[in-house]
């Protein structure tokens, strides 16, 4: 492997961008393809599914074997609201290999006793998300029902094109939320990406059941189709 290729791969990772290192197993010839360059690449048909699954593996192309070292950022899950649903959703997300963090400025909710094994930040979402910005490999669930806590996070999630944006609340609550976002200048296409009412329709009742339905919806958004920004790039 050439040091410059390895350095480029590590730089992409540091910037939380996906890429694929292609190694021809016969002769050892290598090249690095950044996610943004996958559409139009001659091996696009093999690279696109590899990027989506995030799994390294061997592929055959044009009679030769190639090993794809796939590098995708770890999926981050931001839960806005240290609420009952979050208590169930955080451990489920961990089991699924996501990296959850809970943000809630209300210290009565955001107490370590309620959330013993998960990263918990008792600050306003705008401060937290400006410090550690969201990206396409982030999922976010807005769970407070409180516009002054949820909305600043939602604006940042829409701008960052998070692969999953879910918002808790009745259709009426969501209708008012959409009005506020329209007033901020977001397009209908952007707003259509918000999953609301949140979660798959499995008739969930308890907080834990709702957490399962949200986790299922997130996994579907992650695994079943190309990320929205990738569709746009294609």
């Amino acid at each position: 492997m050439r040091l410059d290729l390895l350095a480029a791969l590590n730089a992409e990772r540091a910037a939380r961008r996906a890429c694929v290192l292609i190694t021809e197993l016969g002769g050892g010839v290598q090249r690095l393809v950044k996610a943004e360059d996958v559409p139009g690449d001659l091996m696009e048909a093999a690279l696109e599914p590899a990027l989506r699954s995030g799994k390294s593996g061997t592929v055959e192309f044009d009679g030769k074997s190639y090993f794809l070292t796939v590098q995708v950022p770890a999926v981050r899950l931001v839960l806005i609201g240290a609420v009952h649903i979050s208590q169930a959703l955080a451990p489920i997300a961990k089991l699924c290999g996501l990296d959850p963090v809970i943000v809630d400025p209300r210290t009565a909710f955001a107490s370590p006793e309620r959330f013993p094994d998960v990263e918990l930040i008792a600050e306003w979402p705008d401060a937290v998300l400006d410090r550690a910005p969201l990206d396409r490999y982030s999922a976010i669930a807005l769970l407070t029902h409180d516009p002054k806590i949820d909305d600043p996070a939602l604006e940042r999630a829409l701008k960052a094109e998070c692969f999953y944006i879910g918002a808790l609340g009745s259709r009426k609550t969501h209708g008012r939320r959409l009005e506020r976002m329209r007033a901020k200048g977001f397009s209908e296409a952007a707003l259509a990406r918000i999953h609301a009412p949140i979660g798959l329709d499995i008739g969930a009742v308890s907080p834990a059941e709702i957490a399962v339905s949200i986790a299922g919806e997130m996994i579907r958004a992650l695994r079943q189709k190309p990320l929205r920004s990738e569709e746009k790039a294609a």
Partner: protein
Amino acid sequence: MLSTEQDILAAAEDWRSKGRDVAIATVVETWGSAPRPVGSHLVIDAEGNFLGSVSGGCVEGEVVTEALDVIAAGAPKMLEFGVADETAWKAGLSCGGRIKVYVERLD
């Protein structure tokens, strides 16, 4: 600390940048019950220091020995370990799986 494959690759870059001779071993195929998934890395220097893993510790010794050859010769090598293989018994891939490991020099 060095928990992910990327952390191991970052260490490889760091070692090479500091002038050490380095080889990277990558699990490229597994069959049956293999302890480490495809894409796992082991990074080796010319003194035999290594980071990461390609198995549960069963064949690392063998891979390190081969990596020293690759560092000296420069050409990449494909190694295969499995129960059907004498060497694998010797190296002890006791889980019953088979793995293919690609070893290359970092230039």
